[in-house]
């Protein structure tokens, strides 16, 4: 099993120090008045799981929480000004200057747009959601009237994404949750991941992760090229029509799913030969009829007489 720890080494060292500090401060009972409420993962959610054993506060604001599986980090406040500029240039036209959303455009007449609205309110969606939409290249959107924004090459850098997330998080007094996750796949259970994937994910993304068309022009995107942290962000924030998996999956379970997705969904072993796109019987039937029966008919054409 390969471990795709996404943090660079110096950052990791720094984070470990912060984790240690946070843990110590918890033990020390450093529970000063917090201007922002503690993140929900520290509450009743995921009771019975080792979630949120780590909470780091700075100036009374929770800047980081998590555990051995996933660490959620608030983007640095130093980025807010940069984020504001980037937001104004790239996002404000649709989502509004205050990021409180705009009703559907008159061109958005599809069932999906009419029922779900468009240009949603971004206040309180949390840094992870902002980061997901930008880093997956979906935002800034290619066309605002699409039923569903498509994944495409990233328009803004990782740092720019964090900056915008930091800025949007300042627009509300309540904490936007969750923070930007960083998953540690060490000691993930592939078996649990595969099991949970079948129970929670396969109904839309298909069991091979290829994605497929859903109702009224929406679709479940393919999981084949999604980086690990974006999988976490999608699970925790529920982008678009995807349900949000918050209290019903623990961080350890999410980590297991991510491990299964990034290893076996994205790199299927295919011991039986060509994977045929993971399309199952549709592709198999095509190959069986066109290649199998078709070529054997041609063989018969050679074996027999033609007159």
């Amino acid at each position, binding site marked *: 099993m390969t471990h795709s720890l996404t943090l660079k080494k110096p950052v990791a060292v720094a984070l470990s120090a912060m984790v240690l500090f946070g843990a110590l401060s918890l033990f020390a009972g450093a529970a000063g008045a917090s201007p922002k409420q503690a993140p*929900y993962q520290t*509450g*009743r*959610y995921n*009771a*019975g799981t080792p979630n949120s054993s780590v909470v780091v506060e700075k100036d009374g604001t929770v800047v980081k929480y998590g555990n051995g599986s996933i660490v959620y980090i608030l983007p640095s406040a130093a980025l807010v000004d940069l984020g504001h500029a980037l937001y104004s240039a790239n996002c404000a036209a649709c989502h509004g200057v205050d990021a409180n959303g705009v009703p559907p455009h008159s061109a958005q007449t599809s*069932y*999906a747009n009419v*029922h*779900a*609205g468009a240009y949603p309110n971004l206040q309180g969606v949390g840094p992870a959601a902002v980061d997901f939409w930008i880093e997956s290249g979906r935002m800034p959107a290619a066309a605002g009237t699409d039923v569903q924004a498509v994944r495409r090459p990233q328009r803004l850098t990782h740092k720019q994404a964090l900056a915008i997330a930091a800025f949007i998080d300042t627009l509300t007094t309540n904490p936007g949750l969750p923070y930007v996750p960083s998953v540690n796949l060490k000691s993930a259970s592939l078996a649990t991941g595969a099991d949970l994937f079948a*129970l929670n994910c396969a*109904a*839309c993304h298909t069991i091979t992760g290829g994605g497929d068309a*859903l*109702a*009224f022009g*929406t679709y479940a995107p393919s999981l084949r090229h999604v980086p690990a942290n974006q999988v976490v962000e999608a699970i925790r924030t*529920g982008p*678009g*029509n*995807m*349900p*949000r*998996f*918050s*209290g*019903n999956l623990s961080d350890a379970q999410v980590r297991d799913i991510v491990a299964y997705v990034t290893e076996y969904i994205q790199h299927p072993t295919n*011991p*039986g*030969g060509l994977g045929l796109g993971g399309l199952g019987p549709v592709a198999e039937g095509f190959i069986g009829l066109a290649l199998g029966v078709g070529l054997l008919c041609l063989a018969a054409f*050679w*074996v027999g007489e033609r007159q």
Partner: protein
Amino acid sequence: MSEHEHREPVSFSRAKATDPHMQPAAKDPVGMERRIAILFILAFGLFAAFGACYWVNASAWTLGATMGGGLLLLGVGLVAWGKYLMPKGPFVEERHDMASSSEDRDAFAATIVERGGGIVKRRPVLGGLLGAGVGVFSLVAIFPLLRSLGPNPGNTLLVTDWKKKAHLVDSTGRRIHVDDLSIGSAVTVFPKGYENDDQAQSMDQTILIRIADHDITTQKGRETWGPQGYVAYSKLCTHLGCPVGLYERELKLLVCPCHQSMFDVTNGAIPNFGPAPRPLPQLPLYVDSEGYLRAQNGFDEPVGPGFWERK
């Protein structure tokens, strides 16, 4: 045709091959024989390689490639042998009528009708009793053959294990608390105690969705069924019983992954597209004093696909 006469005679036949029909179709039989020999040698080599691959436990594709390639070459060679090196033909054979002579036909019919009919007519009672015996046996034999295969349906298809005050638990048996799901979350739930039983899962599986943060009414008469934005519907599609596990958060639709029936969760899961004829039955919920979600009662109608006895 003169070229026939100049050809080498075929070697396998004892026939005096003066007949042009006995000539092989190949223009160059010796060359063809050589080519076929090469195919057979290659096939032989591939079969040996197949054996070697098996011996060293090589991957599946090497086994298939060597075996399949060998068979293919053997087949091409053998067909080519038959097609190019054996007598070219064409040959003809008479086709005889299937029908027998009219005397034979009459005699056969007479045997059946007169002999058989005569015997039965002479002993009508015996014939009737024999018929009755065989008939009764066939009828009675159906019982052990069919009836013992399985129980009668009874009310199995009409009821589920959801009872009054049943706790909603997820597939690991954890009780669902009202704070557990955020808006837009969905989870498959079972009545507590039945989450690990295949037989129970097949009837009880229910999907719990939180669609708002206030109580919601999906339909008249269901005012109290959706506390704090939670609704629960049977996860069995009313079309063919597939688990309706596909929830679209913004559209607020449950979609059946099998045949794409779509159910509106804000309106009693009435199907608004696809082949499903009925809404998904809704489970009435309440939040108990500790904050756990529980069922007010079982489903008020049978879950799953339609069948004859469904009222």
